């Protein structure tokens, strides 16, 4: 997975930068208008945003505030809060995924095309649903992982 995200994200962000730079060169240096580049750029850009966020979920580096952690003294208390946070994350993420699925179905039904090159916009729109499904899966993975850690530490305490 690490290799997949490393190469995919590098390709996506480099493609976006290269396309934008190509536009600068064509527009300002060669003074040739570029048709349809802006609408094409939406595809790698949207996938970059959502796969980037999926990778943040995978690496557990999504932005968090963790205010309660400052006041908690023991690792066990922090783990309990973490399990609660993971549970809330799964609930909210599942709800958001449900709505992104509705949007996915809408995009599939309407099947819009980009104005200049007639590329189906669905290929960019589906990134919202696919991204959220993967984010929810990682949220569930961390919930299970931390819950197991919590129960095993509880058993170890009782054994001792």
């Amino acid at each position: 997975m690490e290799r997949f995200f490393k190469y995919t994200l590098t390709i996506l962000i480099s493609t976006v930068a290269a396309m934008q730079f190509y536009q600068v060169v064509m527009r300002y240096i060669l003074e040739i208008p570029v048709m349809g580049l802006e609408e094409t750029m939406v595809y790698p850009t949207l996938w970059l945003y959502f796969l980037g966020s999926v990778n943040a979920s995978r690496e557990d580096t999504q932005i968090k505030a963790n205010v309660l952690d400052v006041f908690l003294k023991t690792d066990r208390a922090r783990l309990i809060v973490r399990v609660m946070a993971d549970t809330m994350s799964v609930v909210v993420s599942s709800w958001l995924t449900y709505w992104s699925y509705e949007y996915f179905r809408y995009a599939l039904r309407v099947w819009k095309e980009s104005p200049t090159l007639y590329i189906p916009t669905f290929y960019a729109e589906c990134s919202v649903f696919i991204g959220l499904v993967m984010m929810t899966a990682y949220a569930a993975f961390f919930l299970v992982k931390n819950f197991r850690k919590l129960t095993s530490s509880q058993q170890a305490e009782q054994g001792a």
Partner: protein
Amino acid sequence: MEIVTISLISLGILIFLLSFGVPLPYCFGGALMTMCLFGGATMKGTMVWGYTQLSNPVLLCIPLFVFAGTIMSESGIAASLLRFVNVFVGRIRGGLGVVASVSCAIIGAISGSGLTGVAATGPLLIPEMAEKGYPRGYATALVANSSILGLLIPPSVTMIIYGWVTDTSILACFLATLGPGLLITFLFCVVNLVMARKFPLILDPPKTPAEAVKEGVTCTSRAIPALIMPVIILGGIYGGIMTPTEAAAVAVIYALPVGFLIYKGLTFSTFLEAAKNSATAVGAIMVMIIFSLMLSQIFVMEDVPQALVEGVFTITTNKILLLILINFLLFFIGMIVNDVTAIILIAPLLLPLMEAIGVSPVQFAAIMGVNTAMGGVTPPYASILYLGMRIGKVEFSEVIKPAMILIICGYVPVVFLTSLWPSLSLFFPSLFGY
């Protein structure tokens, strides 16, 4: 239940989820869920609206600026910049502290982020300052505080987001925080020179004029490729040649040969790592933005900002008192969430109130910028200070006192000046007709 009450409950849910350490996209999602389940709002149109917002080309400058900044900091420019600034002030007592403040401001101009600044300069500056007699806690506090200037010296990611969510010119927002940013840099230099008198510093031996000139020429020529980057970005934007997104793309393409061939700090594997880290950071920000914008849109549709203005005006209509109260609110928000979150959460809600008391959106950009920047070094959510502590290998107890001195002497006066003296933030934008 009234819609305003439900909106307040949804904000309460947001803060509740935040405090538990739920990832920020889900915190905004939780507030959205509350508005939809209990406030009668619907996600149907909101999802389409959110997608349209996210595909806006203006936002593309965020990943590109983040990518350019990460490449530059991986390429090893920090060492060249530090030597360059050191040529001018290195031999005066406390000069190394001035080097820290000024270098972090310059790196901020290149990277647009506080975390990049502390990550790039901290590993070089903190050990060197400690070796020269500065207490390690003080060195860490100074580098962390100065790195925040990356949020105020343009181009700044937070100002791009502010401009976008409030429909204000991004170029004007960039310039609005420049005055406060420069003033904070100056105040940090002064505070450092005063505090350095107490430290048992080891000063560099004096050099002959010929040696000094030779060193100056070498260091300047080495730093020029890095110094050209802000010139390309800002010159391109304010010269009317390029849009911010195009300037960001040019910065990425410029940073590649500089990193690979000139500074040689960039290798294929560090480039891959930089690209992945940039994309991950951008993904985390953008998905959070989409849900926060949906929440803001629902608030706007339900007239929550107007209700807020009316509610506040029943308490007081005194402009100065309101500005002071808003600064306290922003300071409090900055203490618990990061800069981007604070801006997308608060800016659309408070802007109508600001406009009602005669504060322009450009000045409010500076007020938000300075307050949220200060939040980055104010516990409990002091991400930049914590990163500095990790790099500087110091305990919280060692760093908090000097950090508070710098905040009180550097940030706090500028926060109030930015609010009460509009020219501080509006002078540079007015030069460009904003």
